[in-house]
């Protein structure tokens, strides 16, 4: 068979194998890079979640009703409206 007698074929095959070898190396390298990136994003996500929890705590401390009431009454001189100051509006006919 002249197919087997072809002198160029081994070289072509060798080149092809080398090319796929490098492709495998490249892909697995890329996969690792992506994976590392993903891991960092995951830990970032976790850190953000932690920060969110802390901000939530901070918000509820800063906006606690006792603190709001104190600031409203002492700093801003606010009072609950008395009966005379309230007007009830009926909407519609």
């Amino acid at each position, binding site marked *: 068979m002249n197919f087997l007698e072809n002198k160029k074929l081994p070289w072509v095959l060798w080149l092809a194998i080398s090319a796929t070898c490098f492709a495998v190396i490249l892909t697995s390298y890329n996969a*690792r890079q992506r*994976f*590392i990136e993903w*891991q960092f994003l995951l830990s970032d996500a976790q850190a953000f*979640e*932690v920060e969110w*929890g*802390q901000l*939530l*705590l901070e918000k*509820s*401390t800063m906006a*606690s*009703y*006792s603190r709001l009431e104190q600031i409203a009454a002492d700093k801003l001189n606010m009072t*609950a409206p*008395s*009966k005379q*100051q*309230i*007007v*009830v*509006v*009926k*909407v519609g006919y």
Partner: protein
Amino acid sequence: MLASLKFHWRFAVVAAFLMLLFAVLVIRMMLIQVVDIDGGLSFLQGQGKARTVRMETIPANRGMITDRNGQPLAVSTPVVTIWANPKKMQASPEQIRQLAKLLEQPYQRLHKKLQRYKNKQFVYIQRKISPALAEAVFALKISGIYGREEYRRFYPAGEVTSQLLGFTNVDNVGQEGFELAYDSWLQGSDGSRKVVKDLFHRTIKVINHIEEAKPGNDLVLSIDLRLQYLAYKELKSVVKHHRADGGTAVILDVHSGEVLAMVNQPSFNPNDRRNMEIASVRNRALTDVFEPGSTVKPIAVMAALESGKVHAHSKIDTRPGYVKVGRKTLLDPVNYGVIDVTKVITKSSQVGMTKIALSLDQETIPGMYMRMGFGQYLQTGFPGERTGRLPERTKWRPIERATLAFGNGVSVTALQLAQAYAIMANHGEKIPVSLLLQDEIPASEKVVDAQYADAVLEMLKTVVKPGGTAKKAQTESYSVAGKTGTSHKVGRRGYEDGKYLSLFAGMAPADNPRLVAVIVVDDPKGKEYYGGEVAAPVFSKIMSGSLRMLNVVPDKLTTNSPSAVSRSNYVAGR
């Protein structure tokens, strides 16, 4: 020719010998690395893995507890636990001194601790410190000191919600309250996985997940933190003002059966439990039972109305202001004369109530208490919830029948009493109470015909009007209805002299009740101890504030047409 042959022969021997040596090396390597003779392969692979393969724990967060509007009530946040390996620790006394100063520990104690464990591999230095403080500790660069990330529970509302939520121990296991009741629901389980790490400790490959992390579930309570805070503030001020032993207040939504506020005094700060007293941990609204006193009179009257023996305006003769039952004499503060059933409630007449009770079949009143849920679990799932006591007898003596009608010989929790009032406020419909947010209103059960419940509600409106026992329960903008009560505190040896519970239970707005509130003040020590003097004013403040926050239209204010508003100096803000 001979020389070259000779050389050739010697060269061949040496070459063959060297080849043999090389072959031996190759075979040996093969035996070690491929065939695994004398454990070589597993040893090398093990060493390789020891440098790259790591087990990682995936931390799972404990779920959050929030109020009905999503306000956080209990949140887990990461903290750092500092530990040391004393065997590897190399620290100068100066460094240890700095460490002790940072952690606010006495130097001597830290030094002794390290001495005692100097041959051990592990000792806690300080558990659960803030991440910022941990950074400062690591900045000291003491070798052999490590940090481990843990979670700590924070309660932003502090003492306002402490008994309801309970708390967790240092290992994040619920110990009290909802933290205990829903521990497995809130508790996540840590996961773990096998990974390959590179030189820079970056994870480059996940080999397998041993166990997935299961984050804890969130728990949404029916509590409205705004109402909770208001109720707490008012209860705390009345307990302090009257030098009472304690108190409790419950607000219930009439239409959904949800508890909107449940507060107790004394309380504690769940974020710093060093000075916590055991008595302040009880959620009194569910764990403490008391005799409801006059607050059950409306229920007894409802039973009487249902029996058909009396109606709202039947005349009862309370002259001469006292009545003898067996060997006991029951008396009113003054002689009310001939009054109708409504007035018995308005004035809280002991004599009138006794006469009504004695005219009924002996099972009528206990049967009604039973339908109101007395003596039965409320199924709130709260740890330590008590049922109270509703005695069952085949034969009731007259004195027992009379005292039962004004709330002696029966004991309830504050939430049970609130539920009974919610039934009266809701036209006789009993809705199961809940401490958790309800997605839909649970099915109600008709326990009393609407006409009797509504008739009693009408009577309760007279209690807060002039001539009633609780004028101080009135509010400026909303009409209210309710009943006072003052009961003897029950101690180890029966009723305690001079110790009272001051009670008020009621609903508002009176014409179409939206909320029910029960106030209990335990042993007020001032001159005033009647429910109408101590508990009723608290009810008034809590009710008016709560209804306003819930945007309920005030029914005692005059309603203006929009044109009238434009003429007034009212500024709507926008």
